[in-house]
């Protein structure tokens, strides 16, 4: 995460787990602050285009941030700001991308749904549901072949389980036995439709059961420590060489996109009866003996970092119209 992500708190020599949990917590609160900022930026029309935030799902990204290594590669979805931040892309670069500025991680060409960072091995959030999974399986294959040491992780929603691309990718991952983490965030909504209205299967991972050699995991993606355990385990399996599918359950607090009136949603959105992963994580850390003030300080610092990054991003230039035809082809 280096300078890019939120700064790590000093690790207690004797408690690496606690340190990791703290860092994951910091990541969670950072992402929450970022996503709230993004939602506001949409409302104020400062951000052009569509915005999909991950509020309610931060524990998964938090866990991801402490499991993933710089030489691992990440692919994500339309709901991928948090994943990019978790992978080490700076808040400023993500902000600037959302604002369409030259300092954005995609130089302003990509936008929220197309965030790349070669430096951080972020191979794109994706506006299409499905293909990121195939790309990831192939990336893992290529990566292994080129003797790159990392694994490839791809984030996707439970909605992607309906796509042929998902199923074809499972078959290939199993056949090629590639080091890939298929990380499904099941937030029980696919746009405007609840899981139980369309999915005639019980869980995403159950669809992968019949393929040899894909390990299947699940976790409560609103529970920070459980998420860390599960994501760690998933990366461990992938690092050992094999494909793994982790289905993490969480709740989407906001609409599918910002501005979504969510009329389809009986519970009205928000936390609902669900648990706030930030609260859960906080309680868990307090139970681990971390002082509440430390956590408050982290929250304040994260929030400040997000604000500062936005201010910095705003200062950057818009891309020069004369460059519009640049980079159609790789150099």
């Amino acid at each position, binding site marked *: 995460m280096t300078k890019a992500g939120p700064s790590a708190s000093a690790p207690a020599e004797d408690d690496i787990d606690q340190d990791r949990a703290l860092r994951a917590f910091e990541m969670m609160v950072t992402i929450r602050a970022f996503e709230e900022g993004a939602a506001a930026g949409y409302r104020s029309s400062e951000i052009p285009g569509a915005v999909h935030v991950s509020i309610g799902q931060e524990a998964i990204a938090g866990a991801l941030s402490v499991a993933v290594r710089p030489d691992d590669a990440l692919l994500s979805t339309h709901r991928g700001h948090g994943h990019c931040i978790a992978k080490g892309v700076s808040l400023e670069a993500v902000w600037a991308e959302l604002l369409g500025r030259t300092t954005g991680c995609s130089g302003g*060409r990509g*936008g929220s749904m197309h965030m790349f960072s070669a430096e951080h091995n972020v191979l794109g959030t994706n506006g*299409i549901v499905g293909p990121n999974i195939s790309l990831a399986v192939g990336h893992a294959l290529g990566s292994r072949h080129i003797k790159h040491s990392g694994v490839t992780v791809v984030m996707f929603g439970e909605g992607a389980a309906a*796509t042929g691309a998902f199923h074809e990718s499972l078959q290939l991952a199993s056949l090629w036995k590639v080091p890939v983490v298929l990380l499904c965030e099941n937030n029980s909504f696919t*746009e405007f439709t609840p899981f139980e209205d369309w999915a005639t299967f019980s869980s995403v991972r159950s669809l992968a059961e019949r393929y040899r050699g894909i390990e299947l995991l699940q976790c409560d993606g609103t529970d920070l420590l459980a998420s860390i355990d599960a994501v760690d385990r998933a990366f461990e399996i992938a690092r050992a060489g094999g494909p793994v599918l982790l289905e993490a359950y969480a709740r989407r607090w906001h609409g599918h996109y910002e501005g979504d009136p969510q009329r389809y949603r009986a519970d009205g959105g928000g936390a609902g009866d669900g648990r706030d992963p930030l609260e859960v994580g906080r309680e868990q850390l307090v139970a681990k003996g971390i002082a509440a003030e430390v956590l408050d300080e982290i929250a304040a610092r994260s929030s400040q970092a997000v604000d500062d990054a936005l201010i910095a991003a705003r200062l950057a230039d818009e891309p020069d119209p004369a460059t*519009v035809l640049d980079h159609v082809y790789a150099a």
Partner: protein
Amino acid sequence: MTREYRYLDGIRDALTHQMATDDRVLTIGIDVGRPDGPYTVTKGLYAAFGGERVLDTPIAEMGFVGAAVGAAMAGARPMVELMYLDFIGSCLEPLLNQASKISYMSNGALSVPLVVRTQMGTGGSAAAQHSQNLEAMLAHIPGLKVVVPATPTDAYGLLTSAFADPGPVIYIENRSLYRFRSGERPDDGYAVPLGQARTVTSGDDVTLISYSRALHDCMTAVPQLQEDGIAVDLIDLRSIVPLDFEAVAESVRRTHRAVIVHDAVETFGVGAELTARISTELFDWLDAPVERVAAGYAPSPFAPSLERANLPNPERVRNAVRAACGLAAVEPAAA
């Protein structure tokens, strides 16, 4: 006169009328039912016609577009919604190798009365994967009809005709026009025949040809050009296949000049075929090279500064028409 009929209403009303008057019509797609449609085009259908006729689908375009083809073969009149035309990447097969070819392959014994409703559009920073105007790609597939309404009443009338057609019709809306208002609600069942262009403004100096959103840039440019002393014959193609080349030819034979405008990438776009036909079939009538105004050969960029630079606009249209008429550009055209 109340000029407040929306493009979106044109589509919705025509579709609703079909659902109401023809029990064979089915509405199929992602979130078209209970959630009332991603762009509210299908609003009210689920409530009115129920889940047997309004089918929400999972994210399985290959499957559900294919299923719609099959349903059409069974005698239903499915309307399948492809949420964004860009998503054709996920479901080209049932259109490329099935729907478009079944009449031909079966020697005319079978048909696929399918309406694929989809939408395209640029201009709102939807970026590379949600901004493509891919009508030329589909028009290159014999057996498909490709419809591109630009106005609320045409949206209505062309959709009516799409349902009446015995074969597969790709009906491409432009989302930047959804809230565009003009004209009045047509009578129930109002139909505009496929393959019949519409003359929007008449003039004898130049033929300006467009469709979908870009037509509105042309409409903005026409009065400016009038001030420039150029009388424009503005033609809205309304469908790419069938192509009303007769209307174009009739006009160019009068004006001897032609300009084509669309939002799609210029290279290998619809303007290429039109330019080719005008240039060859009307070779002796042309006084100037045909001009094309279209997007540059690049994916659609996210940043508004870039996106603007890559799209047609009234100023570019005006200058292209002026060029066709031998006049200098009024100001440097954008990128």
